[in-house]
């Protein structure tokens, strides 16, 4: 019974937080400096790890596919496989997972610490909404930075695949041929699909991580537990959302 009530509590408070943020979204221009700070933290500092991870995901994808496809003599289509996989699925999902692990955990730790050490209570007594100054700038920055990170991830992943396809002896696909196939089979709508997913995943992850942080009670031990819970919930949420959003996007595009 307790896990069910905890789940319902979390679900309800997350929606309530979203309503509070949306109702105060008119004051976003006044939070511009906080928005820029969050763009730096969410976007700029996450960019190197997104690039490294995407490079190797693209590389492994080309390597695995290359070995299987060369048995059928279809390795020239590696470009399309890497292109579509990165754009539609792996790019947004990997960026969202990185966001949960790197940014989401940090957000929960910061807000949970502020809650435990009564900084959130202090804000409320000052009639300053935590949703307005702490959550809204983070969500806005996520919405702006997620497409940027995803596009970087896609491009670097495609590039990683091209290098592996060129340098691996049994595949040996020239970059020109690789990118020609990639361009032929990967359309703008595929990239757009990925960007929509990335926006939804990023928004959900940051909202959930903020909510868990703001509802932390107890001491330092609970801060650690809140961070773990935030990351686990975010990862589950990304994969569950991924399935349903993919279904919806497929329906829409067909």
């Amino acid at each position, binding site marked *: 019974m307790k896990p069910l009530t905890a789940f319902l509590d979390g679900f309800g408070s997350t929606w309530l937080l979203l309503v509070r943020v949306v109702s105060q979204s008119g004051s976003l221009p006044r939070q511009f400096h906080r928005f820029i700070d969050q763009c730096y933290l969410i976007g700029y500092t996450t960019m190197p790890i997104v690039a490294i991870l995407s490079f190797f995901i693209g590389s492994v994808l080309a390597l695995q596919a290359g070995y299987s496809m060369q048995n059928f003599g279809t390795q020239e289509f590696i470009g399309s496989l890497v292109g579509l996989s990165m754009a539609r699925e792996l790019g947004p999902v990997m960026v969202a997972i990185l966001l949960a692990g790197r940014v989401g955990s940090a957000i929960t730790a910061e807000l949970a610490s502020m809650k435990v050490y009564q900084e959130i209570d202090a804000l409320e007594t*000052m009639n300053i909404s935590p949703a307005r100054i702490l959550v809204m700038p983070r969500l806005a920055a996520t919405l702006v930075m997620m497409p940027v990170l995803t596009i970087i991830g896609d491009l670097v992943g495609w590039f990683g695949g091209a290098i592996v396809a060129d340098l691996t002896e049994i595949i040996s696909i020239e970059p020109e041929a690789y990118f020609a196939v990639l361009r032929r089979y990967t359309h703008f709508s595929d990239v757009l699909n990925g960007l929509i997913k990335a926006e939804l995943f990023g928004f959900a992850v940051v909202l959930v991580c903020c909510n868990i942080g703001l509802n932390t009670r107890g001491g330092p031990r609970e801060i650690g537990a809140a961070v773990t819970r935030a990351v686990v919930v975010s990862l589950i949420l990304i994969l569950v959302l991924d399935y349903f959003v993919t279904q919806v996007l497929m329906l829409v595009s067909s």
Partner: protein
Amino acid sequence: MTCSQIAEKRNQLTPATTPKTTAVHVSVEHLSKNFGATAVLKDVTFSVAPGEIFVLMGPSGSGKSVLLKHMVGLELPTAGRVALDGHDAAAATTRERVRMALVFQSGALFNSLSVYDNLALYPREHRLVNEAGIREKVMRTLQILSLENAVDKFPSELSGGMKKRVAIARALVMEPSLMLYDEPTSELDPVMAATISEIIATLREEYHVTTVIVSHDRELALGIADRVGILMGGTLAMLGPAMALRSPQDPRVADFMNPKINLQHPRFKQLET
């Protein structure tokens, strides 16, 4: 810093720039609060007159801080209510009608902000004045509390006494009608505790705010309180003028105010049996 030094600093300020507030009437009406099966507050009723300094004392865990949180709407009552000038403290709109400030026991300063930004946050977010006005207001408040040298420091760089003073300064910038202090002199040496007491009393004179203090500090209660309430087991065991603390009638209150160290029959041994 003594009372006379604070007064001297106050006199150096331009009278026209000194904010005036309207003190608020606090009415605690049959307030009860349960956490699960545990009753923390049981039908507590008292009121605090505008401009009064009221000190709420009591053993640890008696519900003092919980009561204080009800006054600022951070806790919702199980029964009864706290009214601030007739407005329910639990209502979201009350914070817009009644300007109140709570000085937390830990200070609750924003650790990621400098002392200046901690003080500037409230006027900035509520757009009370422009940046030049905020600077003047913040510096004047820091000057009153002799904190000019701490303006660019971060909370982690401050001593316990300085943190308390910065927390008071941050509350003061809000120009509140109701000042609430949660254990303002705890964890401080006796001289700093006396200084904080002097500051609280002087601020009441300066700003004519209603002041509610939760404290264990007998000296603070006797030194600056108009009235004192003693909370024991969730109910008011005593309510009266501060002087009544010198000769309390209730034996529990007498034992709380003047505990004797008894090595023959230690209290913790009595609790065990």
